[in-house]
């Protein structure tokens, strides 16, 4: 069940609000888009998507990324929160409304808000995730923002009829503070500046 304790998280450019079953149609549409082709296969219908959202366990933090004007533009999750070993997995990260996100550091701030939840609020020491080897933009982006490549699961995904490796990425708390935060701050500043 969706946990009502998952709180909205507000940034300068975007807000993370808890995903609800009523987001099924829009999130299903994003998952069908070309940009989502490198993600795991999702629900086959809007109804399945609604059931999937409604069935998320309370331990997951599933968010819709909204611009400050209320426009939903993507999704992002923190799952597998292990409070004993103090780690969790980031995932389901997708900017579905590409045009609306241009020129706005939406993806950066969304990730920053999620990392704040993980490291500052939940006091985790590590977050991790996997990215399909063919998703080069996401790999480059995650590494630039501090994620370290920790391994490779060979032929882990079957995407568009082709086997792809899963690249395992991890971020420790000190890397978040010394690499991620400064770089995120710069990218946020770029997006906040008026053009020439």
């Amino acid at each position, binding site marked *: 069940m969706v946990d009502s304790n998952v709180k909205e998280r507000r940034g300068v450019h975007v807000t993370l609000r808890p995903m609800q079953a009523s987001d099924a149609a829009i999130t299903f549409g994003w998952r069908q888009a*070309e*940009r989502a*082709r490198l993600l795991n296969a999702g629900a086959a219908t809007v109804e399945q998507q609604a059931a999937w959202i409604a069935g998320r366990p309370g331990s997951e933090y599933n968010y819709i990324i909204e611009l400050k004007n209320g426009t939903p533009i993507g999704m992002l999750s923190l799952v597998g929160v292990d409070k004993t070993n103090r780690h969790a997995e980031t995932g389901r990260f997708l*900017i579905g409304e*590409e045009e609306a*996100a*241009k*020129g*706005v*550091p*939406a*993806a*950066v701030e969304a990730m920053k808000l999620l990392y704040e939840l993980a490291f500052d609020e939940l006091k985790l020491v590590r977050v991790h995730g996997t990215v399909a080897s063919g998703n*080069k*933009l*996401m790999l*480059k*982006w995650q590494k*630039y*923002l501090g994620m370290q490549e920790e391994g490779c699961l060979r032929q882990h995904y079957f995407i568009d009829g082709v086997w792809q490796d899963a690249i395992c990425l991890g971020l420790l708390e000190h890397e978040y503070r010394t690499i991620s935060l400064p*770089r995120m701050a*710069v*990218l946020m*500043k*770029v*997006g906040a*500046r*008026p*053009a*020439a």
Partner: protein
Amino acid sequence: MLTQDGVLEIILRALHNLNDEMSDSEKFDVTPTTKLFGTDATLDSLALVSVIVDVEGDVSTALGRSISLTDDRAMSQKVSPFDDVQTLLAYIMVLVAEG
């Protein structure tokens, strides 16, 4: 010596690399005046990072020393280096000239 034409070539190559990773509907025109990340932006922040990483790497290799496009100095420029190809080119040429 890295010339202005050489730096422009590096920037345009980074944009072509980015286009190669885009779906058909996301591809954009790569020209010496392509808007990057500002008003009428062509790029979102995922795409911008791809350009930054490629350009920083190629310019640093060509110069034989590391440059950073995302330090405090870059952000303190009157005009953002990431407005368009020309503003990025101009900022990099400042870094190149410092030897």
